[in-house]
């Protein structure tokens, strides 16, 4: 097994953990954080390929991750704001009960 494969396996395991959390938990914050985990797993892949993959432009992998981190930050901010807004309306952030769009 070469190091690239190891890194990829690590990232897929991390992705699986995030997926399991997003599916199993009902607390909205945890679901959102599970999604964050999956995003991070993807970023791991970029870096792994940048490090061990066939040489392309030397900064491409890094560029990908930088943009991905920025977008992830935006996603987290909006997601958490949404959660707070939902909580304001329903006093609860269990996802099963947050199935109405109108408060």
């Amino acid at each position, binding site marked *: 097994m070469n190091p690239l494969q190891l*890194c990829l396996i690590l990232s897929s395991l991390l*992705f699986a*953990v995030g997926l*399991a959390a997003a599916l199993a938990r009902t607390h909205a*914050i*945890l679901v959102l954080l599970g999604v964050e985990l999956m995003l991070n797993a993807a970023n791991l892949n970029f870096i792994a390929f940048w490090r061990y993959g066939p*040489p392309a432009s030397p900064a491409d992998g*890094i560029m990908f991750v930088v943009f991905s981190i920025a977008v992830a930050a935006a996603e987290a901010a909006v997601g958490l704001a949404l959660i707070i807004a939902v909580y304001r309306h329903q006093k609860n952030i269990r996802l099963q009960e947050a199935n109405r769009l109108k408060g």
Partner: protein
Amino acid sequence: MIAFAVIALLILASASLAMCLRNLVHSVLLLVANWAGIAVFYLWAGAEFVAFAQLLVYVGAVSMLSLFAVLLTRRSFHDLDIIPESVSRATWALLTAGAVAGVLIGTILGSPFGNVTEAAPAVSMRQLGEELAGTHVAGLLVVGIILTVALLGGVVIASKDKEDKS
């Protein structure tokens, strides 16, 4: 390789623990540890800039956001313990995740990767900056706009709507 093993253990253990715990604050803090672990992984892989960006954004900012969300959506100190999830739901989730992981790992192991480059690609800060402000300047602008919109959107969504104060 030992370093990789330690980092991988840190990442996976903190992630799975975070996702299993009942106490939300602990979950978030463990996730922060996980993010820090990922940053260490980047460092290990030689991507300094990404590692520090990861630390700054995730450990510095996203963690704060999550903690704020946790604090703002609770009723008391003891309100944090989440009700246990239903067993069937958890089972299905684990099965799905396991299946996905299996497929992914199977693919990874089955694919021929050939020879990996051993030497880490050398990227200087200056190079990165030029790339960011040159080749990828469109992306940079778009990200800037997305972040601004997200900031405004976050503020608008989370701010109290005054007229709704019944």
